[in-house]
C-alpha cells in the first residue's frame, strides 16, 4: 500500500514540475501527431462541393430571418400530412374493429352464454378501449413517427437545437434541451430518457420537468379532433382546415412558450445556477435510407408506443365500464363523481365529465376523448352509444360534435379542453420514467403536479375572461 502512496506522491511532484499546461500540451501533441499522419495518407482531389452545399443549407435553415419560419413550416407540413393522411386508415380501422368485430364478439358471447356482466366487462369495456386506441392512434403514429425519424436521420434536429439555443440560454436551460423537447413531441417518456445527453444535473432536471410541455403523441389526436369540430366550425368552410391546423400549431407553440417560461422560473428559483456551455457539432446532412427508416421507426417506435397504449387502455376500459355500471343508491359511481366535479369544472370552463375523464385516463392520454364521449352520452341520456359504460367511436366527426354539443359544450369548453390537454399531469408511464431517471420522489412529484396547477390557472383565467365578454 505504501508503494501506491509513493506513486501518487511522485505523480503530484511531477505534476508540479511540469506545470499546469500539461493538458494543453498533451492535446497539442496529439493534434500534431494527427496532422502528420493525415498528411501522408489523405489526398484531396479538389475543393469539395458537398461541404459547400451543406454550408449553404445551413446558412438558410439556421439564419436569423429564415430559421424560425422554416421550423414552423416543417412542423406544419408534418402535422398536415399526419392529420390528412390518418383520416382514411382511421375510419377503416374503426369500421373493422368497432362495427364488424365488436358485434361479432358480442354474438359469440351470447352463443357461449356468457353472463351479461362478463361480456359487458370484457367486450364493451376492455375490448372497446383497446380497439379505440388502435383505430385512433395507430394511423397518426404510423405517419408522424416515420416523418419525424426521416427529419432526424437527415440531420435537421441539431439545427433546431442551434436555432433554439439562444432562447434556452435566456431561460437558464441547456441548449441540448431542444433535442429532448423534440423527442417529447413523439413521446414524453422517450424525451425524459433522452435528457441523459445533458451533463449538468441542474439543467437535466429542468429538461425533465418541462418535457411534458411538448405535446405528445397521445395528445395530438385529441387536439386535432377538438380543433376540427369546434375551431374549424366558426370560420367559413373553405378555411376550416387551415383554422384547425392553426389552432393545433398554436397549442404546440404555446407549449414551447410554457417550456421556456417554466425553465426560466425554475432556474431563477429552486434550480439556480450557471448555464453550462457545450459543443454541438452540426453533422453533415445525410440522405436518409428511406425504407429502412420507415421500417425501423414502425417497429421500434410506433409498435412499442402502441403496445404501451393498449396495455394501459385495457384496464382503463374495464374501469370505465365498472364505474358506469356499479350503482350507489340510484346513481352510478361515474354519475356521482361527475355531479361532484361539475361546479369545479364550470370554474375552469370545463365540466365534470372532462375532469373525471382525465382522472380515468391518467394511464394513457389517448383514451381521454372516448371516455368523455361515453360519459357524456350517459349523462345526457341521448341515444347513440351502445349502453352504459360502453366506449365507442362515432362514425363521423359531425356526430361526435353533436354529442358534445348536447353535453353543453361551447367553443370555450373546446378551447379549454385543448389547453388542459396541453397542461396537465404526464401519463403514468412518463411519471414512472421520471422517477427512474431522477430517483427522487420530490422531483417526480413536482414534475407531475406543476403542469396541472398551471392548467388550472390558465383554464380558470381563460374562462373568467371569456365570460366577461
Amino acid at each position: 500500500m505504501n508503494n501506491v502512496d509513493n506513486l501518487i506522491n511522485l505523480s503530484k511532484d511531477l505534476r508540479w514540475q511540469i506545470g499546469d499546461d500539461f493538458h494543453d500540451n498533451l492535446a497539442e501533441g496529439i493534434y500534431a501527431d494527427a496532422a502528420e499522419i493525415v498528411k501522408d495518407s489523405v489526398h484531396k482531389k479538389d475543393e469539395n462541393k458537398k461541404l459547400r452545399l451543406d454550408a449553404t443549407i445551413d446558412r438558410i435553415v439556421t439564419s436569423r430571418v429564415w430559421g424560425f419560419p422554416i421550423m414552423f413550416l416543417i412542423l406544419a407540413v408534418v402535422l398536415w400530412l399526419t392529420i390528412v393522411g390518418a383520416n382514411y386508415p382511421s375510419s377503416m380501422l374503426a369500421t373493422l374493429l368497432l362495427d364488424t368485430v365488436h358485434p361479432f364478439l358480442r354474438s359469440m358471447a351470447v352463443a357461449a352464454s356468457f353472463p351479461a356482466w362478463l361480456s359487458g366487462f370484457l367486450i364493451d369495456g376492455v375490448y372497446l378501449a383497446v380497439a379505440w386506441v388502435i383505430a385512433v392512434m395507430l394511423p397518426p403514429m404510423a405517419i408522424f413517427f416515420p416523418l419525424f425519424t426521416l427529419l432526424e436521420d437527415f440531420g435537421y434536429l441539431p439545427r433546431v437545437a442551434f436555432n433554439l439555443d439562444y432562447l434556452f440560454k435566456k431561460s437558464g436551460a441547456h441548449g441540448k434541451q431542444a433535442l429532448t423537447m423534440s423527442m417529447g413531441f413523439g413521446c414524453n417518456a422517450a424525451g425524459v430518457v433522452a435528457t441523459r445527453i445533458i451533463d449538468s444535473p441542474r439543467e437535466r432536471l429542468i429538461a425533465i420537468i418541462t418535457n411534458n410541455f411538448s405535446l405528445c403523441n397521445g395528445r395530438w389526436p385529441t387536439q386535432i379532433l377538438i380543433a376540427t369540430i369546434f375551431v374549424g366550425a366558426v370560420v367559413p368552410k373553405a378555411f376550416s382546415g387551415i383554422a384547425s391546423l392553426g389552432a393545433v400549431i398554436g397549442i404546440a407553440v404555446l407549449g414551447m412558450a410554457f417550456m421556456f417560461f417554466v425553465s426560466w422560473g425554475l432556474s431563477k428559483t429552486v434550480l439556480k445556477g450557471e448555464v453550462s456551455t457545450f459543443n454541438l457539432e452540426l453533422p453533415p446532412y445525410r440522405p436518409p435510407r428511406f425504407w429502412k427508416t420507415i421500417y425501423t421507426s414502425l417497429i421500434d417506435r410506433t409498435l412499442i408506443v402502441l403496445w404501451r397504449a393498449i396495455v394501459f387502455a385495457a384496464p382503463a376500459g374495464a374501469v370505465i365500464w365498472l364505474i358506469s355500471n356499479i350503482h350507489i343508491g340510484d346513481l352510478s359511481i361515474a354519475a356521482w363523481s361527475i355531479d361532484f366535479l361539475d361546479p369545479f369544472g364550470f370554474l375552469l370552463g370545463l365540466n365534470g365529465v372532462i375532469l373525471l375523464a382525465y382522472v380515468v385516463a391518467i394511464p394513457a392520454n389517448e383514451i381521454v376523448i372516448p371516455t368523455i364521449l361515453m360519459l357524456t352520452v350517459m349523462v345526457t341520456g341521448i341515444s347513440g352509444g351502445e349502453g352504459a359504460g360502453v366506449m365507442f367511436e362515432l362514425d363521423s366527426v359531425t356526430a361526435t360534435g353533436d354529442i358534445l354539443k348536447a353535453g353543453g359544450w361551447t367553443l370555450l369548453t373546446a378551447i379549454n379542453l385543448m389547453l388542459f390537454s396541453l397542461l396537465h399531469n404526464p401519463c403514468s408511464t412518463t411519471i414512472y420514467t421520471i422517477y427512474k431517471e431522477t430517483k427522487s420522489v420530490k422531483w417526480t412529484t413536482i414534475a407531475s403536479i406543476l403542469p396541472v396547477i398551471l392548467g388550472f390557472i390558465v383554464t380558470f383565467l381563460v374562462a373568467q375572461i371569456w365570460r366577461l365578454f
Partner: protein
Amino acid sequence: MEATPKSACEACPQFNAAGLKKLGVNTTEFDFVVALAGNPNTGKSTVFNAITGLRQHTGNWPGKTVTRAEGAFEYNEQKYKMVDLPGTYSLLSTSEDEEVARNFLLFGQPSVTIIVVDASRLERNLNLVLQVLEITDRAVLCLNLMDEAKRNNLEIDTRTLARDLGIPVVPTSARFNKGIPELIQTISDLANGRIVCKPHRIKNIPKNIESAVQKLSTEIEKEFPNIPNSRWLAFRLLEGDSHVIEMLRKGELIEELQ
C-alpha cells in the same frame, strides 16, 4: 429486412459469410469482448447494428447513444460480445459519457477495440484514435462513411494509414453494409492473435513531459509488472484523475486490470 443485396465480395468464400451468426441481444456466453469506440456521428451505432443484427435506432445527431449498448455475434464458432460505447471526441475530460467510454476501455479490458471514424473528417477523429491506442494494444480502425468521402473527392491511402497507426484499417460504408465482412474477419484475426498490432504512441510531447511520463510509468510497471497500459495510467495520474487515484488507493485498479 436483413435481405440486403449481396455484393460480389460478400459472395466470395474468403469472407465466410456462412460463418457469421448475428446473435442480437443474446450476450450470455462469449469468448471475446469487442468494444466499439468513436466520435459522435460517425455511424458507430450503424456498424453495431450491421454486425449484431440489432436495430438500435441511429439518429443523425451527436449524443444519440447515451449508455452502453450490448449485442453479440458468432463467427467461426466463437462468440463475441459487442459493447457500443457513447460517442466522444476525446477521453481526457470528466463528462459522464467520456468517463463511461474511458473506464470501459481501461477496466473492461476488451479483447478487440473497433475505433469508428468518419473518413471525411479523419484528422479531427484521429484525436480520439491516438488516445485509444495509448490504452489498448488490440484495435482496428473502421474507416466509415467511405461513400461520403468518395463523394467529397477524398482519397485515403489505407496502407500508409495502417502502417502509421500500427493497426489494421478497414474501409467501410456501414449504412450500405459495405466492408462489414472484412471488418468481422479482422476482428476475429485480432482476437485470435493472427494479427499483432504495434500501436502508434503519441510522439509530439514536450521533452519535460515525456520524461515525467516515462519516470512515472517505469515506477508503475515496477509496482504492477503485468499492467498493459502504464503510459496511459501515467497520463491520468499527471492529469490528476480522481477516479484512477481512488481506485489505486483502494487497490481496485489492480484487480480490474488483471
